[in-house]
């Protein structure tokens, strides 16, 4: 699995022959699997079921069990802007996060390899944002990038933004927040792959007169593909379903609403669980399709 690169940094060479199964394996597996079935798979079924009910508003709001596929048509026509925005933001943010993270991960994983203490310190700093509340981190940026802060005065002065324009509430502000919040998820898997990169391959490449850019394209990049795949998945998926950054109380405005915004609004504010769940099912389905295509593509390229 692509995700394996996220946590395992040793190749599976010592595991030997797995022992034969029996009652023990059942005892080990069953509790966890039953839990998974009850609170992951059954909720997915409940989600699909709810996405098909019919909302009746007279005499009072209630929901009739049905096969009301109309909910999906409603959701697609009503929330099309949010759907394209979510995937657009996720695409841009993932790409930028990759471009920012790769050199950082390369530096930590390859360049400071001979100084383990510094390396470990840098890894700790990369994961440090995990230890402070996600919401507070986002609020911090909201306040740092609000109008009339030193940063924004500077941005206005050099003319990146018109004096009348605020940054907070705009699409770029939301994408900025998404990039910031998910960089560690990109950097970590890249680091675990690059840390294992055998530099002798790179030396061999340059010994054979390959230019540095050719060494990078033909050796470093293909060897770091597992990290790139798991990093991009670990950022793209949560970003596509993010609720916090685009919310009006954080970095967004009503012009930046994403799929998550609409799911929360329909489920928790306007009491429309049928559209909230239909939109969730749609999001999950689109992600699964995209991920499958992506992993297949990347997988074959890796072989070339």
């Amino acid at each position, binding site marked *: 699995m692509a995700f394996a690169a996220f*946590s395992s940094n040793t190749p599976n060479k010592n595991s030997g022959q797995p022992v034969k199964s029996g009652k023990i394996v059942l005892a080990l597996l069953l509790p966890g699997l039953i839990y998974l079935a009850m609170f992951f798979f059954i909720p997915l079924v*409940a*989600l699909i079921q709810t996405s098909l009910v019919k909302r009746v508003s007279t005499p009072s709001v209630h929901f009739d069990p049905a096969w009301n596929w109309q909910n999906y048509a409603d959701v697609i026509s009503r929330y099309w802007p949010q759907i394209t925005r979510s995937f657009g933001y996720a695409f841009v943010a993932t790409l930028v996060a990759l471009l920012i993270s790769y*050199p950082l991960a390369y530096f930590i994983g390859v360049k400071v390899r001979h100084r383990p203490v510094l390396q470990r310190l840098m890894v700790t700093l990369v994961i440090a944002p995990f230890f402070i509340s996600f*919401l507070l981190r986002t609020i911090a940026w909201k306040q740092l990038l609000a109008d009339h802060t030193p940063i924004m005065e500077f941005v206005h002065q050099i003319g990146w933004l018109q004096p009348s324009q605020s940054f907070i509430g705009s699409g770029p502000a939301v994408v900025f927040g998404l990039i910031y919040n998910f960089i560690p998820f990109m950097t970590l898997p890249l680091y675990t792959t690059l840390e294992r990169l055998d530099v002798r391959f790179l030396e061999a490449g340059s010994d054979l007169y390959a230019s540095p850019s050719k060494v990078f394209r033909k050796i470093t990049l293909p060897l770091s593909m597992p990290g790139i795949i798991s990093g991009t998945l670990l950022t793209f*998926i949560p970003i596509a379903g993010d*609720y916090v950054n685009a919310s009006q109380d954080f970095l967004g405005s009503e012009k930046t609403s994403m799929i998550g915004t609409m799911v929360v609004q329909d489920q928790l504010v306007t009491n429309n669980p049928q559209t909230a769940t239909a939109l969730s099912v749609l999001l999950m389905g689109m992600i699964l399709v995209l991920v499958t295509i992506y992993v297949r593509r990347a997988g074959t390229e890796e072989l070339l």
Partner: protein
Amino acid sequence: MRKLAIGRFIFPLYALLALVFLLIPIVYTFVFSFNQARRRNTIWNGFTLDHWANVCSRQDLCDALGTSLTISFISTLIATILGTALAIALVRYRFRARSAVSLSLFLPMATPEIVMGAGLASLFFSLGIERGMFTVILAHVMFCLSFVVTTVKARVQMLDPTLEEAASDLYATPTQVFWKVTFPLLVPGIMAAALLSFALSFDDFIITYFNAGNVTTFPLFIYVAAKGGLPPEANVIASSVFILAILIVVATQVYGNLKKKRLALAK
């Protein structure tokens, strides 16, 4: 050669800038925990230690913290036990549905939180279960489980099976082998998984938001307070949690180093 010299200078500078960028909001949160402000903690008014001295002057905030700690502790405990068992089974035993089990454990990690949150809310709604601390714990165990499995699995894969074989050759029963050999060797992985799942649970907002009912966790408190103005005490709590977490990470690394050195000496 000239190119190399430039590269030598640019790379560290870039890494430094990137790390500074990552740390800016943390420093900001820490600095503003010392701000003389009551509700709208957005403009610097001067230095004070009041918020650190009287964190619980906002009783509701401390209650939310207590709730979060309870939820994270219970969820971590359950998820770690279930996940460790799954990880051992997946690496050590060969059974027919093994790849199917792996895939179904991977799926929750590929599911956006919003989907999982809405799904669980639909389930609790259709079963008529009232949402509260209980439903939040059920949800947290769920999303921590896969991360525990992945983390512990990596450790089980590193384990040398000859050690266990040696123990059984010396007439240890399977139970003894597990508790005297396997388990102690897995402890670092299990600890890492528990810390990860505690951090995930403590910081979770979306899934909790969907399933909390009237319960207020620390992230939910921040979310609600953010609309009206966040009290500086929230910064105090977040900063303390941050310092504590960093201390734990550093302590485990130092401990790991010492152990490695001792092993090297023994050899």
